């Protein structure tokens, strides 16, 4: 079952000869059909890959040391950009929000505005995009190069399942680090907003914090925020590992797979964000 997963994803190149060489309207429709079938087949392969990886993650022996290493790659190494971006976003939100709110004399709700925007949307979404760009691309490139240099084949000859040894720990580390990074992003953003609102703009610190605490609900806001981060982590893990696994055995194919990981992961995060918000995010 796993051998079929290694075939490169035909994706955008369904092969024009197979789709019929006549250039008439029938040929165009046939090409469209072949393209659609290739798309659906690609999705099906990706889904089977996700199932195989999930099973591999659950199957003992658990690779604790591998997981710690991968957490270092995807989590600790992402800390710097996630934290600095969080502070910057919180500061900008406070500055923008203050000027808009001051027009209605509602500066006191600055804490609520900054906190709710960060917790509900910006924290999970921006963390997802940053991690997809930083750690997701690295994940695709690493797995792709391991495949291209026949390291994965070497593991198979030693009866080591690459899904279990390489892909599983990588995917699991992404699932774990995304909610943690998103929480740090959100908290530092709130702190950045506090610095701008209270130190620079002269708002009262107690008013900022009480507005924040009054507006934020555990279940509806913090819970949905963690749910979003976990879903985005799963999406990035899935897309990054699959793209790397089926990239093909050349430097050019691996580099294009890396690019497609970032694009696909970013777009799916934004689409999934809308769906989650529509289902659970609005009271």
């Amino acid at each position, binding site marked *: 079952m796993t051998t079929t997963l290694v075939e490169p994803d035909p994706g955008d190149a369904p092969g024009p000869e197979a789709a019929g060489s006549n250039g008439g309207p029938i040929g165009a429709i046939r090409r469209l059909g072949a393209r659609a079938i290739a798309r659906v087949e690609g999705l099906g392969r990706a889904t089977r890959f996700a199932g195989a990886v999930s099973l591999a993650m659950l199957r003992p022996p658990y690779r604790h040391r591998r997981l710690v290493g991968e957490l*270092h790659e995807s989590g600790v190494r992402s800390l710097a950009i996630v934290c600095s971006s969080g502070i910057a976003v919180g500061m900008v939100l406070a500055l923008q929000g203050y000027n808009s709110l001051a027009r209605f004399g509602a500066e006191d709700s600055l804490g609520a505005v900054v906190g709710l925007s960060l917790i509900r949307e910006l924290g999970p979404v921006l963390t997802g995009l940053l991690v997809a760009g930083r750690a997701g691309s690295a994940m695709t490139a690493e797995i792709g190069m391991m495949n291209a240099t026949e390291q994965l084949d070497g593991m198979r000859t030693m009866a080591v399942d690459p899904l279990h040894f390489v892909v599983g720990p990588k995917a699991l580390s992404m699932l774990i680090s995304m909610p943690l990074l998103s929480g740090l992003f959100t908290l530092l953003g709130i702190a950045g907003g506090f610095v701008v609102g209270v130190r620079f703009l002269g708002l009262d610190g107690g008013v900022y914090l009480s507005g924040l605490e009054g507006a934020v609900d555990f279940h509806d806001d913090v819970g949905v925020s963690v749910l979003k981060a976990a879903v985005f982590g799963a999406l990035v893990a899935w897309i990054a590992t699959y793209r790397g696994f089926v990239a093909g055995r050349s430097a050019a194919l691996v580099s294009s797979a890396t690019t497609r990981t970032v694009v696909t992961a970013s777009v799916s995060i934004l689409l999934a964000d809308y769906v989650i918000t529509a289902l659970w995010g609005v009271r």
Partner: protein
Amino acid sequence: MRSSPARDLAVGLFVLAGLVALAVLSVQVGGLAYTGGGGLRLSASFDEIGSLSERAPVVISGVKVGQVTSVTLGEDLRAEVTLDVDRDLELPVDTFASIRTAGLLGDQFIALEPGGDDELLADGGYLSFTKSALNIERLVDRIVTSFQSGDGAE
């Protein structure tokens, strides 16, 4: 993969910092700690509740002591509101509940004013003395009508 103490420490610190961040967001910001209180469930009926909704605060002299758990239409076609307040509160049976608004247009909440009766409210008790929400639109309407009728008399 080789194990390195420095890397393990970094990963440990990262996981710890992330968990602390989520805990602070949940407890400090999300108000998870508060909803653990309560335990004394009371109900009350109102003619008009305005925009009072679930999770609206319940206060005594401005101090938050609980929250609204449900708002339904009772059998007598009046709004029936269930409150969850601190178990330790010794509220007399003639406690007065009124719906108020924070500021002119702010959120609505329930203010309790303890009465003087010796008998105390038990779990599942019913607040008989209530005052409905002040409807600003109706108030303005009444003022305008009274002005108009005043003009007509002149």
